[in-house]
């Protein structure tokens, strides 16, 4: 079985994977709700950090808990908890990023039995010189809370090891992304997304091993179809791999992305410092920002434009989860930036389920428009 097939298999059986891990290692599994939760700290305490994701099914269990104007992802994620699909979790963590997913966290804590939960007060003014020390204090709280819950002390060596493993994970995924710069693409956008989503569900040691396998396979791998238009996907939370497959079947390949089940999650390393928690805090304050925590558009915008150039992007899909205002605010500025480079953009708004037919028409029309000469 190839590395990509293994990622697919783990995504299909994500709950079973976590349950098996628990049985196999005797460790605790902690869910997390936003990529601003420092997974290396959870891992250092012997926990398996697992990202809570939705399933894109129609559901009616969250209406009593969340306003109708809460984003579809946050609703979908809470539905999983209410339906008991994460009944094996020992803990749940969340970092202060957006009020919608906070609704998921609060309701989960109140209405779904969970032995341990912890909320990280990520400072909202991340540009301030006081942001790193502030978050460091929060991470110390988290560390102490975990130690109290598990009865295990997290040593500097534990932290060093976890930091090293996650930095390796990030480096290997960046290496995979390098292959997507090629004209002769060895991997589709859907497959790359499977890799990143798997990294948010798996034990980092096992994921690193699969990444090494994948890097060995990629030089001899080819797509079984024409690559078509080189597309960049930019937006809010997005783990709908079925959608990405549909998108790519219409005549394009996603060569680079900027979302939190893609590059925005793993792009930045923790730069080691003597003060380990300080180093982790610095990584999360200075990392590739989500607009939900950043007031500086250019910090994100400049990185996006650089990636668009480096990966030779020919078209851009800008999307948002419905009601995700921070992302929606950035869309006009991003669209303008791409317009100046003569790169066409398409904007789509995602709900729990997507209107397949309408999206198909828009995407096809966009591809017809973006192709230099159709006939």
């Amino acid at each position, binding site marked *: 079985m190839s590395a990509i097939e293994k990622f697919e298999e783990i995504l299909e059986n994500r709950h079973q994977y976590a349950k098996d891990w628990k049985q196999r290692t005797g460790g605790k599994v902690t869910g997390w709700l936003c990529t601003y939760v420092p997974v290396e700290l959870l891992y250092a305490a012997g926990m398996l950090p697992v990202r809570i994701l939705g399933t894109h099914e129609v559901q009616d269990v969250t209406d009593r808990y969340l306003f109708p104007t809460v984003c579809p992802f946050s609703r979908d994620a809470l539905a999983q908890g209410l339906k008991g699909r994460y009944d094996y979790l020992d803990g749940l963590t969340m970092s202060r990023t957006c009020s919608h997913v906070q609704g998921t966290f609060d309701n989960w804590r109140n209405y779904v039995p969970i032995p341990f939960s912890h909320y990280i007060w990520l400072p909202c003014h991340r540009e301030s010189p006081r942001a790193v020390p502030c978050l460091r204090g929060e991470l110390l709280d988290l560390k102490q809370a975990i130690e109290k819950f598990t009865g295990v002390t997290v040593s500097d060596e534990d932290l060093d090891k976890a930091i090293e493993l996650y930095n390796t994970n990030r480096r290997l995924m960046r290496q995979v992304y390098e292959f997507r710069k090629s004209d002769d693409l060895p991997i589709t956008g859907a497959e790359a997304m499977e890799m990143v989503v798997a990294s948010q569900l798996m034990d980092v040691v096992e994921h690193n091993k699969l990444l090494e396998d994948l890097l060995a396979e990629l030089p001899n791998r080819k797509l079984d179809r024409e690559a078509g238009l080189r597309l960049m996907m930019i937006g809010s939370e997005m783990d709908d791999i079925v959608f990405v497959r549909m998108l790519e079947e219409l005549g394009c390949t996603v060569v680079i992305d900027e979302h939190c089940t893609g590059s925005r999650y793993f792009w930045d390393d923790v730069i080691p410092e003597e003060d380990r928690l300080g180093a982790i805090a610095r990584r999360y304050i200075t990392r590739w920002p989500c607009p939900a925590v950043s007031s500086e558009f250019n910090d994100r915008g400049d990185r996006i434009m650089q990636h668009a150039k480096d990966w030779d992007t020919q078209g851009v899909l800008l999307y948002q989860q419905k009601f995700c205002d921070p992302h929606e605010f950035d869309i006009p500025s991003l669209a303008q930036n791409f317009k100046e480079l003569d790169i066409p953009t398409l904007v789509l708004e995602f709900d729990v389920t997507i209107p397949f*037919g309408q999206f198909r*028409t*828009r995407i*096809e*029309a966009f591809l*017809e*428009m973006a192709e230099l000469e*159709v*006939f």
Partner: protein
Amino acid sequence: MTTEYFRWTEYTWKDPDIDWRKADTLVAGIDVGSVSSQAVVLADDKIYCYCNTRTGSNSPDSAKNALGQALEGTGIKDEDLQFVVGTGYGRVNIPMAKKAITEIACHARGANYMGGPTIRTILDMGGQDLKGIHCDERGKVTQFLMNDKCAAGTGRGMEVMAELLQVPIVDVGQMSLDVPEEPEPVSSTCVIFAKSEAIGLLRSGWTKNMVLAAYCSAMAHRVVGLLERIGIEKEFTITGGISKNVGVTSRILKELGGIEAVPLAPDAQIAGAVGASLFARDLLLKSRR
């Protein structure tokens, strides 16, 4: 038999001056939309015949029906058509089509053909969606915007209203203009809400004409909102079934500051199928090269 007020005129047309047997290329475009279907046959670069009919319960039958009606009495057999392109919501399910192209590209191309190369902005008001499209002088799309998921402000909504008020849909536009003064638009263009609101207005003594005026006005207002997002570049034209409703189109043009819409002959509702037939001809000529 009860009257079906939602029914609009279905018809076929052919150009008696063209002898299709002398044509070098004979191709067709078929547009299977959510409400109506059209088939256009192009003899060389001229429209030879076409049909405009209702979409049935499935796309393949609707396509066959539209093409069958268009070809009736012409002597053209299906196999005489050298290339067929399908478009519209049902485009991927048109059995005789060799290629499917979106209605967005086809409407731009068809409007460019019928209205001339100066057309830059097309408003397509279809059975279940709305599209604002910009194109270049060749009819190639440069930008577009589509309404979101609901059918408000589209042909289907107008059909519901015609049934509710028991007014033949082809009379809706003219009747909506025959009012002593322009009423406020209905507050929502959601079809279901608008229907409830219309019932309320009728109960409070409004005439049918006033209710139609309020609905047409709401529809126009919604469309202008979409157009303003994409921007209007001249020349401007309107395609799709609602382009035949003067109650909506005149209000759109007024709200856009009194601009004009380039008329499309022979029929603005067939723009998608015309565009598809033009693409079919391009693809046929390309395959010969």
